[in-house]
């Protein structure tokens, strides 16, 4: 073979390798669905998790579709077989585990406590209310009912203090629409309510973003620290696929990127996540205990 032919052959080989290396098309095959619990809105949930879903498709070798799901509808839609993988809060995880034997994959890390967080009852710093007992007859705003650190944890704190939130408060409500947690924090800040059931993570985030100051509020009580949002897999899922999915989550670093919509985006940064940790199912026992004490699903008794 002469020198010119060898050179062309080498160029062709390099070109082919580059083409193969650059091929980032989503893998072919039947699409599997990941149900993402809505946090603030369906639109925001899709935007946040699109890069993560693309990353998982590339790593696992299966095309995934992100499906935003209302918290209240999650169990029914999961039971109907709509999703193979789930991304939910810790309360929904224990419900799906209890009722449908959901497999625990990894727990999301975000904020000061990593894969865990807490709920707090807050009042304005200048409020005359100094203890939980003084909430009797007052106006209080809670997060959505299925929020472990925006509703259940605070309900539990009040029960432990001998208060029945449904009888002892003067008035209580849940905000409507999107960004409920921010709304209730602003509700207290602006004086519309005396106290709020605030997730600690939202207080942290809003303080970091400069929306509120640390001195604006007094924390009357804070719950124990419980696991944060969690990835799970249906029991019927292929075990090899589940293991690849889990490893892909645990392998994420802040530098991991994917190309999506013509842009190269950071997977964790886009999802507002610091990383994932492999917690154990027993780490969710405090959530189970809280659900029992507050008569919440999956232990609700009428």
């Amino acid at each position, binding site marked *: 073979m002469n020198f010119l032919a060898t050179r062309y052959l080498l160029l062709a080989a390099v070109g082919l390798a580059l083409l193969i290396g650059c091929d980032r098309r989503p893998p072919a095959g039947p699409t599997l669905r990941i149900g993402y619990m809505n946090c603030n809105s369906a639109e925001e949930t899709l935007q946040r998790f699109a890069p993560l879903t693309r990353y998982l498709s590339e790593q696992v070798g299966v095309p995934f579709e992100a499906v935003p799901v209302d918290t209240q509808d999650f169990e029914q839609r999961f039971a109907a077989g709509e999703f193979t993988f789930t991304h939910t809060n810790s309360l929904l995880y224990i419900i799906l585990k209890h009722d449908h034997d959901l497999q625990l994959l990894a727990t999301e890390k975000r904020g000061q406590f990593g894969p865990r967080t807490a709920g707090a009852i807050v009042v304005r710093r200048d409020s005359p209310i100094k203890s939980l007992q003084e909430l009797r007859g007052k106006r209080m705003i809670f997060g959505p009912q299925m929020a472990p650190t925006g509703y259940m944890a605070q309900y539990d704190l009040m029960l432990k203090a001998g208060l029945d939130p449904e009888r002892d408060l003067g008035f209580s409500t849940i905000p409507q629409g999107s960004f409920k947690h921010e709304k209730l924090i602003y509700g207290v800040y602006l004086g519309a309510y005396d106290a709020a059931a605030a997730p600690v993570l939202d207080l942290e985030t809003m303080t970091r973003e400069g929306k509120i100051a640390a001195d604006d509020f007094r924390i009357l009580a804070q719950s124990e620290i419980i696991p944060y949002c969690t990835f799970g897999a249906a029991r019927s899922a292929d075990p090899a696929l589940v293991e690849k999915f889990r490893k892909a989550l645990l392998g994420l670093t802040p530098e991991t990127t994917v190309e999506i919509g013509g842009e190269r985006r950071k997977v964790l940064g886009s999802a507002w996540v610091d990383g994932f940790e*492999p917690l154990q199912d027993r780490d969710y026992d405090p959530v189970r205990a809280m659900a029992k004490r507050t008569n919440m699903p999956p232990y609700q008794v009428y």
Partner: protein
Amino acid sequence: MFKDRFDCLSAAALLLVVAALAALLVTARPSDGRQSNGTPDRRVEQEMLAQARVAFLERHYGPVATLRDRGELQSALLKLEELDRNFPGEAHGSLLRGDILYRMGLVDRAVSSLAVAVRGNGDYLDPASPLNQRDLIAVAAEQGIPLLRDRLRGQPDDRQTAATLKDAYYLKSRLAGGCE
């Protein structure tokens, strides 16, 4: 050489200046705060910097310590979030966060924060420093190592726990000090 009286006067003045300079060089001593080579005394400079740093930390991070000492741990953490916006990467923020997380029982998170603090400022391990926090760092590392080792045995692919265990060993190594 000397053509007139003015040349004589100039020469005399020049000699006087040279003699005065020579006398000055022979008799001069380094003044306080300066070394003989004319550069500022580094010990004085370092002492001033150390005092300024302690005053700076007290001024900005004092409210966090006050909240912590009153037992308002979550409020103290929120105050740290606020300070992080103004002083990102400040080691003292990591030190206080580690202290608060340790008090909350989150030993693994405390170890990570304390390791960041010590990497940022070794004074936290210096017994002679006003910033010394050896006792806190030692107890967090001692409690963290068995806890993290057990967790890693159960979950060998837990990279976060592996990284935190390395942080705990790093703290232990820094507490032990170098070769003497």
